[in-house]
């Protein structure tokens, strides 16, 4: 409904050209660069036309947060400051997004949990904030090492949740994430997760788009709710919520509001398929043994497949790119030939295996494992061992490994 004024082709104050996002991400030349994951986050933000970044230090995201501070000093970010705590940061992000800004923040582990109340609030207020979650342990005893347990808590917030495998995923998905989450029929926050340290603190070759190209700015007038109107919901809800009025229609409004958030998650499916080229990637789906994984467990699964092929065992792979929207239909199709489905995970509860079991027919095909947690690494050999044991093949003991 807003005046459709295109910024594409014009320049920002740093001399970057606002570029058609599809052209920038799919057609523009790429430069291979050897960066850590944290540096890759900075480079994505350099091109994201971000208005506000709010930071709070917690390992392993603090490095990325500090690097984005450098971007602010260079003039690529509109505003940047440190909040008093993770809860404060997420509340301040909401304020900035209510005001019509493109907002970015980073978090990890216990900080994510501390701020948790804000995430369903973001979703309920339809705020397209992007939050990088560099997963780490959240339970006692404390650990700063990668562990994806916090993703399980994000799955029911109403946020979009994507799980990147590599730094290259991270670079592309940060930029594509804004394209999906800012669509007016979506307009939801995005939790873009990666396994901390494995991605954030590891150097990798990442193909970057030109530094003189950037995304078009956010247009708050395409929001499905009025921005920053203190009298109108969702802002007024905070001092005069519907549910405080005890009658059917107040409940109906509140219920419909919640349903609308999840409807928007569903609507994101079409846009996510367009930008990520599908919600999953697959290899060898004709095989009877499949590994289904997300994050860096995909890389370990891929290596396990190579090791198994050396022993004459053929195995397929499903890389789950998005957890919300959940690619249920895609996983059902990709695993229809499988007699055994293995779900390696970097957490103790096996939330991904539970999601898959709830999705596919004959769910006793799912082997929830192997699991590692607390930051422990997952050698591909333990995936191989898990598969061989399930198939009744002899597998070497790995218990003495590292001693």
């Amino acid at each position, binding site marked *: *409904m*807003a*005046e459709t004024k295109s910024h594409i082709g014009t320049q920002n104050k740093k001399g970057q050209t606002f570029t058609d996002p599809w052209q920038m991400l799919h057609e523009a030349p790429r430069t291979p660069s050897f960066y850590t994951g944290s540096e890759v986050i900075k480079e994505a933000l350099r091109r994201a036309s971000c208005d506000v970044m709010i930071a709070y230090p917690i390992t392993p995201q603090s490095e990325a947060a500090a690097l984005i501070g450098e971007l602010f000093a260079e003039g690529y970010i509109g505003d940047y400051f440190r909040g008093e705590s993770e809860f404060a940061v997420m509340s301040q992000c909401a304020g900035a997004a209510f005001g019509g800004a493109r907002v970015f923040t980073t978090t990890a582990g216990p900080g994510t949990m501390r701020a948790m109340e804000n995430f369903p609030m973001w979703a309920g207020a*339809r705020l397209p904030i992007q939050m990088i979650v560099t997963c780490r342990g959240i339970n006692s005893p404390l650990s700063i090492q990668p562990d994806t347990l916090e993703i399980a808590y994000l799955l029911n917030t109403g946020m979009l949740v994507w799980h990147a495998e590599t730094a290259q995923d991270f670079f592309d998905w940060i930029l594509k994430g804004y394209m999906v989450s800012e*669509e*007016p*029929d979506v*307009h939801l926050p995005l939790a873009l997760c990666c396994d901390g340290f494995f991605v954030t603190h590891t150097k990798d070759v990442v193909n970057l788009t030109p530094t003189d190209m950037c995304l078009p700015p956010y247009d708050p007038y*395409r*929001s*499905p*709710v*009025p921005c920053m109107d203190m*009298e*109108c*919901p969702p802002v*007024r809800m905070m001092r*005069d919520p*519907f549910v405080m*009025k005890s009658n059917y*229609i*107040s409940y*109906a*409004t509140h*219920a*419909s*509001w919640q*349903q*609308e958030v*999840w*409807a*928007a998650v*569903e*609507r994101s499916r*079409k846009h996510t398929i367009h930008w990520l080229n599908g919600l999953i990637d697959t290899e060898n789906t004709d095989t009877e043994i499949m590994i289904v994984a997300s994050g860096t467990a995909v890389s370990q699964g891929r290596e396990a497949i190579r090791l198994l092929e050396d022993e004459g065992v053929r195995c397929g792979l499903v890389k789950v790119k998005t957890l919300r929207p959940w690619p249920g239909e895609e996983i059902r199709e990709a695993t229809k030939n499988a007699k055994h489905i293995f779900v390696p995970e970097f957490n103790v509860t096996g939330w991904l295996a539970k999601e898959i079991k709830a999705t596919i027919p004959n769910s006793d095909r799912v082997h929830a494992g192997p699991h590692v947690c607390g930051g422990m690494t997952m050698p591909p050999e333990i995936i191989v061992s898990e598969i061989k044991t399930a198939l009744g093949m002899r597998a070497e003991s790995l218990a003495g490994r590292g001693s």
Partner: protein
Amino acid sequence: MTQYRVLPGPEHFLPPSAASMGIYLPNPGEAHINGVIVPEEKAYEEAARQFLMAQVPTIFPGPLVLWAWNEKAAKKAAAVRQLYETLKECVQPGQKPMLIPMPDYRPKYPKINPEVEINPNHPNLTIWHNKIDCCMFVGVHCHQANLSLKIIRGGTSCYTVAMCAQAGHEDAMLSFRDASVEKILKLGDWIRKLKGTVKPRLTSAKTSASN
């Protein structure tokens, strides 16, 4: 492909959102009728037919066209007014077209006045009070439109049309997308084109689950 269809209610105590039932929004150049994607041209004809069949066809303009916050909004408001005038010209005796504004989304307490406006949190009250059996939302923020459309589907038998400036609404029985001044006026042209060819309903539709 989903078997779910977005039909006039009353559907359920708490109907599901149509998107969660597998209904997809149309792509540019398309519309949807009852959740089935159709060419936009077919939707103009069907929307015009529904308006001409209804005993109380009603247009609900929202804040995005009611407030002259930019030039385009003012032009759309004029187009909506013209559509209403066309509707009045084309209906038959006994039909009662209405234009009821949705000026804002504030919760209205202690009570809303359904004769003055429609509120997205209590849309069924306005539908019931005025015995509205076909309505069109235009210029309503998408989230608030979806809330209203779903509550209307849940508790009334009103046929809902959405003239959406963005991607459209699954929770309407018929939805356009990328609405412009031209599209609003084109709907008026279709109403004029079908004038006298559509038989109005003899009695108003049921207005609540209980009657």
